[in-house]
């Protein structure tokens, strides 16, 4: 149904992290939507929150896995994306992780080498515990911070110097197994309290190093919850959340600073003139044909940058979240979709050159009266 003879329509899928989205706000439960949109568009650019399902993952050459800070910069026209066949993923482990839990993470990485053939390494620990802190913003969305960001960046620099071209980072997160927030999340009605801090960690690394990075939290195992929501189940399968990150990063695209965009801080990476790229292989913001986001969460940089450039914005009303920052509130024109299935239909229509308005009824006449 979704195969198309038309050229791919590069499409951006944004499911913001830590805002309680009913689709994609849990353990990689945005992945089916991402797969469908990849099939409809032929080329989907999305971020780890939409793809990461702890021990579960899906690798699709039509999907570009781009960390959130880089995704914003890409959408704003500051970066281009160059797909790659594969890359070496360095593993950065927080010194705050206990020995046994550390060993579990190393074994997860070994499994990805032995069973999937991924190029992983080198591995190193931060010089001291990084000190993850969790909090909620005034809106109730999850935020977080890091006590020692400098140690994180220094460890990242050492990994790059040792040959890593992407970094999977694992930080020790605070355990709070008896909290109401965690119980709500596991039962499918809360916000992912870890997500905000995870985003901060990966944003710091990508901004500083200019290579793909993504984060998996290290946590003690939780007691069995018989009322576990299916959307949270992927995080209960194993001892780590690391495999999906390693798989995602193993084919994440290169991040290329563009001349004329906001300057990057990437070390030793001069900006490239946009005209220097072969359009068939390099993805740039001006090649985007659609952006898909939850209808109430349109206030992020990537979505605003696309919408203000006139990229069709598909707002999924069937993915409510804590926020109500919608097209009407921001004065943005949107194509509403009740579900990701409908959004995929709209993407396919755009890819085929169909005007989505022609698919709705009633179909108003071009002229209501002749003047």
């Amino acid at each position: 149904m979704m195969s198309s003879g038309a050229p791919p329509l590069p499409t951006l899928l944004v499911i913001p992290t830590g805002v309680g989205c009913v689709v994609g706000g849990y353990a990689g439960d945005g992945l089916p939507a991402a797969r469908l949109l990849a099939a409809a568009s032929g080329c989907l650019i999305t971020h780890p929150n939409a793809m990461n399902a702890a021990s579960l993952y899906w690798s699709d050459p039509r999907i570009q896995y781009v960390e959130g800070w880089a995704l914003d910069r890409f959408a704003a026209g500051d970066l281009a994306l160059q797909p790659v066949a594969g890359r070496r993923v360095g593993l950065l482990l927080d010194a705050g992780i206990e020995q046994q839990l550390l060993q579990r993470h190393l074994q997860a990485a070994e499994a990805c080498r032995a069973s999937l053939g991924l190029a992983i390494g080198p591995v190193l620990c931060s010089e001291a515990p990084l000190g993850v802190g969790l909090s909620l913003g005034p809106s109730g969305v999850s935020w977080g911070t890091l006590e020692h960001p400098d140690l994180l960046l220094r460890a990242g620099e050492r990994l790059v110097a040792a040959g890593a071209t992407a970094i999977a980072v694992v930080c020790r997160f605070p355990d709070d197994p008896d909290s109401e927030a965690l119980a709500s999340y596991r039962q499918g009605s809360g916000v992912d309290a870890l997500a905000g801090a995870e985003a901060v960690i990966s944003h710091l690394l990508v901004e500083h190093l200019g290579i793909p990075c993504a984060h998996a939290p290290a946590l003690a195992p939780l007691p069995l919850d018989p009322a576990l929501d299916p959307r949270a189940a992927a995080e209960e399968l194993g001892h780590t959340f690391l495999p999906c990150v390693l798989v995602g990063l193993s084919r994440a695209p290169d991040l290329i600073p563009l001349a004329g965009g906001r300057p990057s801080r990437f070390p030793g990476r001069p900006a490239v003139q946009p005209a220097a790229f072969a359009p068939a292989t390099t993805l740039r913001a001006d090649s985007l044909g659609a952006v898909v986001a939850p209808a109430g969460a349109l206030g992020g940089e990537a979505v605003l940058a696309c919408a203000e450039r006139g990229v069709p914005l598909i707002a999924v009303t069937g993915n409510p979240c804590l926020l109500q920052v919608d097209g009407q509130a921001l004065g943005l024109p949107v194509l509403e979709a009740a579900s990701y299935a409908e959004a995929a239909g709209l993407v396919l229509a755009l890819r085929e050159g169909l005007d989505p308005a022609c698919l709705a009824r009633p179909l108003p006449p071009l002229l209501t009266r002749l003047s």
Partner: protein
Amino acid sequence: MRLQAETLWLQPGPGPLLPQLRAELGQLCQRRGGAGARPLRWALTAAEQGRGVRIEVVLVLEAPPAVTASQVSPDTAQAHAAETLPQE
């Protein structure tokens, strides 16, 4: 280097919103940390008829001393509230 969470409201003027948000965040960084300060992660988390849009942001600050919200007067007419989020 340190991280600081902030929230502020902006009453947008006419025209595209994103350049106004970037300018407002740039001014916030100047007030909080000066050179090297920058927004690491931000999003609009509310939009209200009378107050405009609420921005929640995590800043990267190079300078160690923190400036509290009460010491800062928003230096644009559009920014009519700024407060520091609860510390983690």
